[in-house]
């Protein structure tokens, strides 16, 4: 049994780490109280304070480009050395035509590279990270870019409209000897669970109400976190920081408690109250906020969640390179601090909820 379990911890044959990372959050903020004002007469508890809303000229492609530029600045790397550009999102601008080729072109990575878009609800970005670890870890490539970015959709008046935010982060995976944080191991936990979906051509997603909790979020997040720790021989207290997928404030706080993590461990990476749930970018931008302040030797646990459903867990150890690289690009908190509050009417215009023809 022990041998069987040990085989499930994923570790590449050559050590891999994060050479650079970068965040992006658009500047507009819609307070949750505005959604309540319009749809419930202001009644009811609010799941977060406010969410980030993209400008009229922003989408997953433009936001990915800025996050990826920040990641490349931190790594100080010649972009032509990158062999994969993978963008995970559920808001790709085109139904057919990759976001990733546009990102690769804008960053000067083309033409000697892989490029593809990934789809797995909120864990599309961390799935791309797992694959990038494999690509670099096998020696097929020295550097691979994995991005999680979203401009999430919420039906007007739906519970998700309070939280469906915009933002994400880019990670440049590379050899451990050029890493600001080394990947100690990873693990994935997936089942077929119909908690949330959006059908082809549908504008807004559907969700299974309370079904999104126990059989979906909690089962997969705690399943991935606890199994990772068991396989890696780690205890909850071994981690300086823990970042969990955060669709609202309650879910990650409760999942952390179930796994034995403290509020202090999850605090730095818990951004949902200020920018909303950034879906495929959600866990990944939590990690970028942690890396912005992490110190050499710190251990970090990252656990994503994507509806459908599954979780990816990653253990990271921060290296001495983190300090100089933190300062080479804007930090996650710089983007969060840049905020322009809008009301529901401006939000309706920006998110194209008004029918003009």
């Amino acid at each position, binding site marked *: 049994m022990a041998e069987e379990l040990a085989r499930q911890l994923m570790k590449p044959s050559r050590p891999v780490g994060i050479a650079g990372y970068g965040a992006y959050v658009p*500047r507009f903020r819609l307070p949750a109280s505005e959604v309540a004002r319009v749809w419930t007469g202001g009644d009811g508890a609010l799941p977060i304070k406010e969410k980030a809303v993209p*400008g*009229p*000229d*922003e*989408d997953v*492609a*433009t936001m990915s*480009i*800025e996050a990826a530029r920040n990641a490349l600045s931190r790594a100080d790397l010649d972009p032509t050395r990158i062999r994969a550009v993978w963008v995970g999102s559920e808001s790709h*601008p*085109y139904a057919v035509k990759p976001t990733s080729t*546009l990102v690769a*072109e*804008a*960053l*000067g990575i083309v033409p000697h590279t892989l490029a593809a878009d990934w789809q797995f609800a909120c864990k599309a970005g961390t799935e791309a990270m797992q694959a990038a670890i494999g690509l670099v870890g096998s020696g097929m490539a020295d550097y691979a870019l994995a991005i999680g970015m979203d401009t999430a959709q919420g039906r007007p008046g739906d519970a998700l409209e309070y939280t469906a935010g915009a933002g994400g982060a880019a990670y440049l995976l590379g050899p451990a000897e050029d890493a600001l944080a080394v990947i100690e191991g990873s693990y994935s936990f997936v089942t077929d669970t119909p908690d949330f979906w959006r059908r082809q051509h549908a504008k807004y997603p559907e969700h299974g109400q309370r079904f999104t909790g126990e059989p979906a979020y909690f089962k997969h997040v705690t399943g991935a976190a606890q199994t990772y720790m068991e396989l890696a021989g780690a205890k909850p207290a071994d981690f300086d920081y823990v970042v969990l997928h955060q669709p609202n404030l309650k879910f990650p706080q409760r999942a952390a408690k179930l796994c034995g993590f403290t509020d202090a461990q999850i605090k730095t990476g818990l951004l949902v109250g200020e920018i909303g749930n950034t879906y495929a970018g959600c866990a990944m931008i939590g990690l970028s906020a942690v890396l912005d302040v992490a110190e050499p030797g710190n251990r970090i646990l990252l656990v994503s969640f994507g509806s459908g459903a599954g979780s990816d867990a990653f253990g990271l150890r921060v290296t001495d390179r983190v300090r100089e690289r933190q*300062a080479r690009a*804007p*930090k996650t*908190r*710089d*983007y969060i*601090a*840049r905020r*322009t509050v809008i009301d529901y009417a401006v939000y309706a215009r920006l998110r194209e909820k008004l029918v003009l023809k």
Partner: protein
Amino acid sequence: MEISRHWRLRQQRYGLVGEVCPHCDAKIFPPRDVCPSCSGEAKTPYVFSGKGEVYSYTIVHDPPEGFEANAPYAVALVKLDEGPILTSQLTDVELAEVKIGQRVEMVTRKLREDGDERGMLVYGYKFRPTLATAGA
């Protein structure tokens, strides 16, 4: 539909890729293969830093077709730190706060749809006020 033109201009539009003159080191944007300073041949690609300042600007209230979603918006002459002046929309800025001499930086944004909602999306450079960072 202008697919071939959008495609031809993608590097200068997405990444501010111009040229540098091998004879007099002048930085050239947009790329034109002939140096406007010394008239020599200049075909060496040069990636601009994207940093510059507002040289002059105007506010567009009555936009041309295809730009309605952004109106009202500012269009500026941006003087790049490397020398050239280009025309660009400003973004992520309150219109009352635009000033001549304001420091700006390039971002890649969606410019418009080519035609209706079935057409290709056109991306390119815009400039925004330099992002404030805690360290700066």
